[in-house]
């Protein structure tokens, strides 16, 4: 498959995605399909660190929740006082005009993203100096600490959560509106990451993944690259979170915003399932995971989370390359890799010996 066919295919996929909300048969499932774009965003942003840079982050959900809360708080404080808002709680009187709503949403998402980038830069310059397991465990702590903190902070609703303003009638149903929001976000994130991976930045973070000491010895400012990578990931996650809060209307601190056991785990699994360290891997992994989850998992009656743990173990231990990684190993030429048959044979026989 050469690059022009791939381009045509991608464009066709995008146009098809644009028309999904117009198909009557898919109308009832529109929110579910909007969730798919969110899942793709999760997997893509996790893969920046987890795949391309080789740094496990279990705490990326921090930025998702941060963006969500920032957006909701700004939407609330722009037009209401806290007391007023608590009384109406997003009911009739809290209805906003279209312009007000869009302005609040845009400003909130922008601020949330900015905030997330600042937090990522501050935290990153500190903890990204940590290697390997120190970083992994530290991020594990971050996500949960944020959730605990949010559950105790009254200004943002504490444990009882926060309600976002309703979508004005002029913008139509929530489903189609946020479908487009997430579609556009996912496409932008994909294109930005593709551009980044193709350039010097991508080479640098791949070098960090392959051998950080050597990368540093060669003069790369590894901590700086790592921090930037985390900021990119935080930026898109915060935008996603901001819009996601408005899609689900109700923000619970530990079940929606800082939902480590669900979203936080899914992003890891989806990226690995699809193939970490590849561009299309997270997209495919997220799609496969989300579709199977929607189709089958309701039949597991509460055992789905047990299955989730099992799935992670199985995928990580037996299928660490993921779908795209496996295809790449199987048909390297189709991925534009030059294969020297002799060297390949020698490599395989070496692998067999060890």
């Amino acid at each position: 498959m050469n690059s022009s066919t791939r381009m045509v295919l991608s464009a066709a996929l995008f146009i098809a995605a644009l028309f999904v909300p117009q198909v009557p048969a898919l109308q009832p499932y529109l929110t579910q399909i909007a969730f798919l774009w969110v899942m793709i965003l999760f997997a893509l942003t996790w893969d920046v660190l987890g795949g391309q840079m080789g740094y496990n982050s279990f705490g990326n959900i921090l930025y998702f929740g941060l963006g969500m809360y920032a957006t909701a708080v700004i939407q609330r404080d722009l037009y209401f006082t806290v007391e007023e808002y608590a009384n109406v709680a997003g009911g009739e009187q809290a209805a906003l005009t279209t312009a007000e709503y869009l302005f609040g949403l845009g400003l909130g998402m922008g601020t949330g993203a900015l905030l997330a980038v600042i937090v990522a830069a501050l935290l990153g310059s500190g903890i990204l100096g940590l290697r390997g397991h120190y970083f992994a465990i530290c991020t594990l702590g971050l996500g949960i600490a944020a959730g605990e903190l949010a559950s105790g902070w009254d200004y943002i609703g504490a444990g009882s959560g926060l309600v976002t303003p309703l979508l004005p009638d002029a913008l139509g149903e929530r489903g189609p509106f946020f479908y487009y929001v997430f579609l556009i976000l996912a496409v932008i994130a994909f294109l930005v990451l593709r551009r980044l991976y193709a350039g010097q930045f991508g080479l640098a973070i791949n070098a960090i993944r392959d051998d950080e000491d050597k990368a540093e010895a060669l003069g790369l400012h590894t901590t700086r690259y790592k921090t930037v990578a985390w900021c990119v990931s935080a930026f898109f996650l915060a935008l996603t979170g901001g819009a996601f809060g408005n899609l689900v209307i109700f923000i619970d601190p530990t079940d929606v915003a800082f939902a480590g056991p669900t979203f936080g785990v899914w992003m890891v699994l989806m990226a690995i399932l699809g193939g970490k360290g590849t561009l299309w891997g997270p997209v495919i992994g997220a799609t496969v995971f989300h579709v199977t989850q929607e189709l089958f998992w309701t039949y597991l009656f509460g055992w789905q989370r047990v299955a989730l743990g099992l799935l992670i173990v199985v995928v990580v231990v037996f299928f660490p390359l993921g779908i795209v990684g496996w295809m790449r190993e199987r048909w390297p030429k189709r991925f534009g890799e030059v294969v020297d048959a002799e060297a390949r044979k020698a490599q395989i026989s070496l692998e067999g010996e060890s």
Partner: protein
Amino acid sequence: MGNLEILVEAPIFSVQLLLDGLLVGAIFALAAYGMALLWGVMNIINIAQGDFVILGGYVTLTLYNAGIPALAGVPVAAIVLFGVGWVIYRVVIFRVVDRDLFISILATFGISILLQQLMDQIFGADIQSAESGLGTLFLFDNQVTLGKVKLVAFGTVLVVGAALAIFLKKSRMGQAIRATSQNARAARIMGINTDRVYAMTFALNAAVCGAAGALVVMTWVIQPFIGLAYTIRSFMIVVVAGLGNIAGVVAAGLGLGAAEQFAAFLLGAEFQIGFVFALLVVILLLRNAVLKRKRQVLK
């Protein structure tokens, strides 16, 4: 922070907090000792560490509900968890020992989620505990109360810790474990079956966690999803104490226990877990800042 005044006005409260903290900290130290062992020998950070602890608690709880005294749960939990650890090693862990950190940490992360959810399905999400029936000591004119079970737990920790240390020092297997931790390849050349050593280490660690969990369920409470906090505590203690430093592990464990009790009293009990996680982040940031000053960076 309103509780600070209480502490100033009635200093006897701090004795209470300190005692509670130190006694519970000993249990943290026990789990951390296991983590240090695993880390040192296999270079694996076991994210499921805390879930082993909680599983040990549930084993004891099951016995207790069947009418067997909770104290008998300590050895039983250790034996059951030894088996669980052995099986997990034989099914999953041996495939990831020699591979990169990325895979081993994700694999144990998956095991952790699996165990949590399994316990949630089997035992329910409620907070539970087992009554030891040992009664309570009253000290300082009845101003300080102390469950006798906490003293028993403290003693048990000492016994288990000492037994483990002696096992590692004296027994043939213990020597093999230490040799493998020094240099796995050399150990293999000298005829040590490192695979068996790894299996033994992993199972031993699980057993230690199981004993710790049995003590937790008697002195405190357990809940399927609280395991992660124990993993974080163990990790924190090992990071502060350093690998292979038993005295350091004990000191750090006791210190963490006391710090947590004071934090919970001052900030409110609902922030105790949040405090643990925030403390971890702070400790790692500090550690990094200290290391950075020692490192030369090219400008």
